[in-house]
C-alpha cells in the first residue's frame, strides 16, 4: 500500500497547529497533547522512512506530486533520498523532545505550540520538497516563527536579538531567492523542479562559479559560517529552550542541507573553484567560535558559540568534496543537532531550577542536581569529541577527509579538538564540580524525575547508539554522497 507517507509527515504538524488554534487557551493540557500527537505522528513516519529505505539505490523515493502551476514551472513535488531521511528523523526527534521539554510551560501555551509546530512544518517542508519554489517557501516559513517565539517567550534584550536573527537570515535567504531565479533562467529547462535539474541541467563553468558562491553565502548565513554567524549566539541566548533547541539543531542543518542539495550537487566546477574558501570558512568557524566560547560567562552563549564551532566541522566536511568528507559532514549534521538539543535542554532545565545562567553564581551543580548535570556533562563530552559518542565519529571522518585534501587545514582542525576540550572542562570545573553555593541565596535545584528527564534520555540514547555503531547512519549517506559527487 503506497500510503503518502511524506505528506503525512509534512501535514501532521500543520494539522496539529490548526487544531491548536481552535482550542481555548485555558485547557493547556489538551494543547500539549495535540502538539505531542502531531509531532509523534511525524516521528513514526520518519521511523518508517528509516526502516523501509533500501540503501543501494540513491534516487529519490516515495515521490508524490500534488499539483503544478502551469507556465511557471512550479509544482508541489515531494521526494526523499539518503541525504534527507536522516535529517527528517533528526527533525522529528528534536520536535518530539522539544515538545516534551516545554510540557511545564505556563505562559501563553497556545501560541507557543502553534508557532513551534509551524517552525517544524517549515523544516519538514524544506527536507521533503523537491521544487525550488516550495523549497524557498518552507525555508522562510521555518525562520519567521522564530521571530515571535523569541519576542514573546524570550529573555534578555529579546527584541534586538529577534530582529537581528530574522533580518539576518532573511537577508541571506534573499540571496538564495535571487540565485533560484538565475538558476531557473540559466538552466534552460524552464522549471523549478530540482529533480529534473539534478538529472538534466548543465551549466557553464563561469555561471557555476558565480552561482556556487551565491548559494554558499546565502545558505551559509543560516548555517552560521564565520563572518555571518553573529546572529546565532545572541538569538539563542534570548530564545526559549524549545525554540533554540529546534533552531540550533534543525535550522542550522537546513543551511548545510541547502548547500549540499543545491550548490554542491549542481555545480561541480563551482565547488572545486571555491573549495579553498569552504575549507577556510570551516576551519575559522571551528577555531574562532571555540576561542570565543572560552571567555563566555552565560551558559546559553556558550552553547550558541559551540554550536557555531560544530557547524564549522560540517562546512569543513563539505569543503573536502570527498566521500568521507561528505559522510562526515552529514553525520556531524545529525549528531550536532541531537547534541545541541541535549545541551539546550539541560541548560534550560538548569535555568528553570536555578533561575540564572551565569557561570559565576552556579556552584556545585553535580552535588545538587546529579541527574540534570550528568546529562549536561554527557552532552559536553560529545561536544569535545569523546569516542563512544557520535561527536567523535563525525569529527574523525571530517578531519580524515581534510587531511587527505590538505595537511595544513587538517592540523588546524585538529587544534579545534583541544579547544573544545578546554572550554567544556572549564565549565565543568567552574560550576558543576565542587561544593554547591549556600542554600540561602540561590533556589535549590530540584532534580529530574523520569518524566522531566524523558526528552534528555531520548536524545542521549541516539548519541550513544550512533557513537557505538555509526554504520546505521553512514550507510544511508554513503550512497547519496557517491551520487552527489558524481560530477567531481
Amino acid at each position, binding site marked *: 500500500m503506497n500510503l503518502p507517507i511524506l505528506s503525512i509527515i509534512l501535514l501532521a504538524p500543520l494539522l496539529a497547529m490548526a487544531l491548536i488554534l481552535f482550542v481555548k487557551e485555558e485547557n493547556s493540557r489538551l494543547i500539549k497533547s495535540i502538539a505531542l500527537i502531531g509531532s509523534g505522528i511525524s516521528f513514526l513516519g520518519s521511523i518508517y522512512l528509516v526502516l523501509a529505505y533500501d540503501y543501494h539505490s540513491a534516487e529519490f523515493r516515495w515521490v508524490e506530486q500534488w499539483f503544478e502551476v502551469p507556465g511557471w514551472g512550479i509544482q508541489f513535488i515531494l521526494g526523499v533520498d539518503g541525504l534527507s531521511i536522516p535529517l527528517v528523523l533528526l527533525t522529528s526527534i528534536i520536535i518530539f523532545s522539544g515538545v516534551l521539554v516545554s510540557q511545564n510551560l505556563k505562559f501563553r501555551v497556545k501560541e507557543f505550540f502553534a508557532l513551534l509546530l509551524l517552525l517544524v512544518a517549515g523544516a519538514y517542508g524544506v527536507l521533503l520538497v523537491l521544487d525550488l519554489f516550495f523549497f524557498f517557501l518552507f525555508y522562510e516559513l521555518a525562520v519567521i516563527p522564530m521571530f515571535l517565539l523569541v519576542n514573546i517567550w524570550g529573555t534578555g534584550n529579546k527584541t534586538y536579538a529577534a530582529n537581528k536573527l530574522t533580518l539576518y537570515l532573511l537577508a541571506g535567504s534573499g540571496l538564495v531567492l535571487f540565485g533560484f531565479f538565475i538558476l531557473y533562467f540559466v538552466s534552460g529547462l524552464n522549471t523549478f523542479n530540482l529533480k529534473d535539474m539534478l538529472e538534466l541541467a548543465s551549466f557553464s563553468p563561469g555561471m557555476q562559479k558565480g552561482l556556487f558562491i551565491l548559494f554558499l553565502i546565502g545558505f551559509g548565513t543560516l548555517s552560521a559560517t564565520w563572518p555571518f554567524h553573529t546572529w546565532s549566539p545572541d538569538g539563542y541566548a534570548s530564545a526559549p529552550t524549545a525554540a533554540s533547541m529546534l533552531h540550533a539543531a534543525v535550522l542550522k542543518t537546513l543551511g548545510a542541507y541547502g548547500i549540499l542539495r543545491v550548490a554542491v550537487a549542481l555545480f561541480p566546477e563551482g565547488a572545486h573553484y571555491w573549495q579553498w574558501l569552504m575549507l577556510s570558512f570551516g576551519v575559522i568557524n571551528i577555531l574562532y567560535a571555540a576561542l570565543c566560547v572560552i571567555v563566555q560567562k552565560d551558559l546559553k552563549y556558550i552553547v550558541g558559540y559551540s554550536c557555531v564551532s560544530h557547524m564549522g566541522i560540517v562546512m569543513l566536511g563539505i569543503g573536502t568534496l570527498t566521500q568521507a568528507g561528505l559522510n562526515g559532514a552529514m553525520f556531524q549534521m545529525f549528531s550536532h543537532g541531537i547534541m545541541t538539543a541535549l545541551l539546550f535542554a539541560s541548560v534550560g532545565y538548569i535555568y528553570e531550577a536555578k533561575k540564572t545562567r551565569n557561570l559565576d553564581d552556579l556552584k556545585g551543580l553535580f552535588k545538587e542536581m546529579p541527574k540534570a548535570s550528568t546529562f549536561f556533562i554527557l552532552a559536553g563530552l560529545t561536544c569535545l569529541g569523546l569516542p563512544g559518542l557520535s561527536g567523535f565519529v563525525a569529527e574523525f571522518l571530517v578531519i580524515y577527509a581534510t587531511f587527505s585534501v590538505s595537511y595544513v587545514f587538517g592540523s588546524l582542525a585538529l587544534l579545534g579538538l583541544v579547544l573544545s576540550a578546554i572550554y567544556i*572542562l*572549564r565549565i565543568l570545573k567552574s560550576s558543576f564540580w565542587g561544593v554547591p553555593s549556600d542554600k540561602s541565596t540561590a533556589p535549590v535545584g530540584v532534580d529530574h524525575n523520569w518524566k522531566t528527564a524523558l526528552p534528555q534520555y531520548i536524545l542521549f540514547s541516539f548519541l550513544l547508539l550512533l557513537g557505538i555503531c555509526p554504520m546505521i547512519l553512514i550507510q544511508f549517506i*554513503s550512497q547519496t554522497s557517491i551520487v552527489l559527487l558524481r560530477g567531481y
Partner: protein
Amino acid sequence: MSHLALLNISVFSNFVAFLLITFFLKKKEQRFLAAKVAITLSGLGALVSCVLLFQRFHLDIALTASVTWLKWNTGELLIGYYLDKVSLMMLTTVCVISFMVQMYSFWYMKDDAGIRRYYGTITFFSWAMIFFVVSIDLFGSYIFWELLGLASYLLIGFWHEKPEPRRAAIKAFIMTRFGDLGLLAAVILLLVKLKTVAIPVLITAAGTLLSPQEVFWIVVLLFLGVMGKSAQFPLHSWLPDAMEGPTPVSALIHSATMVAAGVYLLVRLFPLIAFSESAMTYILCIGALTSLIAAVMALTEKDMKRILAYSTVSQLGFMVMAIGAGAWQGGFFHLLTHAFFKSMLFLLAGYFIHMAHHSNDIFSMAKVSYGTKSKLMVALLWVGSLALCGLFPLSGFLSKETIFGSLMEGHHYGVYGVALLISFLTAYYTTRMAFIVSRNGEVVDAQENSLPLYMKISVSFLGLMTLIGFWIFLPALTEFFHLHSEWHAEQWVNFFITTIGVVLAIGVSYFYFGRKQATSEKGWVSFIPGLSGLIENKFFVDHFWKWVVDKGVYRFSRMSFWTDVHIINVIVDQVGLTAIRCGKKAAALQMGQVQQYIITAVVVSLFVVIYLIFGK
C-alpha cells in the same frame, strides 16, 4: 571453552560490573554490594586471563577476531581483538593488578561516601584499558586511549569538593588530550596512506609501503601521543599533580596501566618504528631526558606519593630509552615487572598515609613508632624499594639486567652510561624514602587497627610476584626475552657494574638517612648549588605550560571575542542603523508644502523628458 570466549569474558567482565553498578545498584545502601560485585567480577576476569595465558603462551599464531566498525570508499576501520604474545602478557598483568587494586581499595574507600561512583569509574577504566591492550585496530586503540583519559580525569577529580583535585584533573585531561592529537594525526596519516590501520598489517607491510620520511613523521606524531599519555618530558608535569586522586587510583592508573599504555603501544608497533633510524634516536633522547629529570626531581621530594610518581616517570623514561635503543624486549620486560612492584609500593603508600592520619609527608610517617607499623607492610616496603633499585633476587633486577645486557650487545656505551647514572639515582631516592619511612618514631598510636585479611592478601600477592613470581616463569620467558640461561663473561661484567652502582647508592642513602642520628632531609643535593632551586620549580615546565595557555589560548580567545563583539557585530548593527538613518532623511523630504511637491514632480519630469530626448 574456546580462547575467544575466554578473551571475551576477561575483557567484558569489568564492563558488566560497570553496567551493574551504574544502572542497577543505585540505592545508597547497596554501595557495598556494588563494591563486592566489582571485585568478584574483576577477580573472575583476572582468573580467566591467567588461564588464557597458560593455554596460549606457547602458541605462536595470534588470535584475531574483528568486525567492520566504519567503512567508506577509501578506508575501513575495525573493532576487535588481536591477541599475540605481547598483548597476552600485558592483558594478564593488567587484569591481575586491577583485581588486586580493587580488592585493596575496598578497605581504603570503606568510609568514603562516593564509593559507588568510585567503583563504577574504576571498572569502566579497567574495561577500557583491557580492550585497549587487545584491540586489533590502531583506531580502536585510539578510541580506548581517549576513554582512558576520561576515566583518569574522573578519578583524579574524584574528591571534586576540594579545588586542587579539580585543577589537577583538568590539567591531566588537557595535557593528555594535546598528546592524543599526535596519535590521532598518526592514525589519520596511516589511514590516508594505507587505507587501513589494522595492527597486523602495520607490523608486517607498513614499512615497505611508506617512504622512510613518511614513517619518520608518523612515528614522531605517534610518539607525541605516547609522550602525553606516558608522561614523557615536556608533557609529564600532569602525573605528579595527579596524586590528588585516591591512592588506589594512583596505584592502578598512574603506575601500572594507563601510563604504561604509551610504552606498550611503542612495543607493539616496534616493527614499524624500527624502519626509521632518526625516529628511534629521537625516542631515545626524549626517554633519557625524561628519566634523568624525573630522577633528579625525586631526590628531595618529601611527599611519598610524589616520590613514587617521579620514580614512575623516570622508569617510563628508562623503558622508552631502552626501546629507542632497540632493546624492546628488555623495555617490555621491565614494563611488566615495574607494573607489579610499583603498584605494590603505591598500595603501601596508601597504608602508611592512612596510618599517619592522612598526611603524605614521609617525615611525619617516620615519627610513628615501630609498634604501630605493621611489620608485614614495612617488609613489603623494603621488597618493593629494592626491586625498584634493581637488586639481585628481585624481578626489578631481571628486567634491568636484560636492558643493560642488550645495551651492551648493541654497543650503545653512551646510553649504557646514562642508564647507570639513572639506576644510581633511582636506588638513592628509593632507599632514602624506605629508610625514612621505616624509622622507629616515638609516637605510639593507641588504636592500631588490625588490617583486614583481604587487604593483606592483595599487597602480599604483589610482593610475591616481585620476589619469586618471575623466577617461576623465567624458563618460559627466556626464549621470548632473549635472556641468557647461562651467563658468559659479558653477563658477569654487566652484573657486577650495575650491582656495584646500586650498592654504592644504598650506602650513600644509608649514610644520610639510615643511621639513628641521621637528621638531614635533602642529603647531598644541598651541596650542589642551584639544583634544589631547580627542583623546587620542577625545571620550569609548569611555568612554560602556564605561559602557553595564558598567553596563547586565553589571549587569542579574548581577541577573537573582542573582534566578534566590536567588529563583526558593529558592522551588522551599522547596516541596520544606516537604513534607519536614510529612512529619517527620506521621510524628511516630505516638508508638507504642496507647491514644493509639485515643483519636484515637474522638475523630475523635465529631467526625464530631457534624458529621453537626448538619451535616445
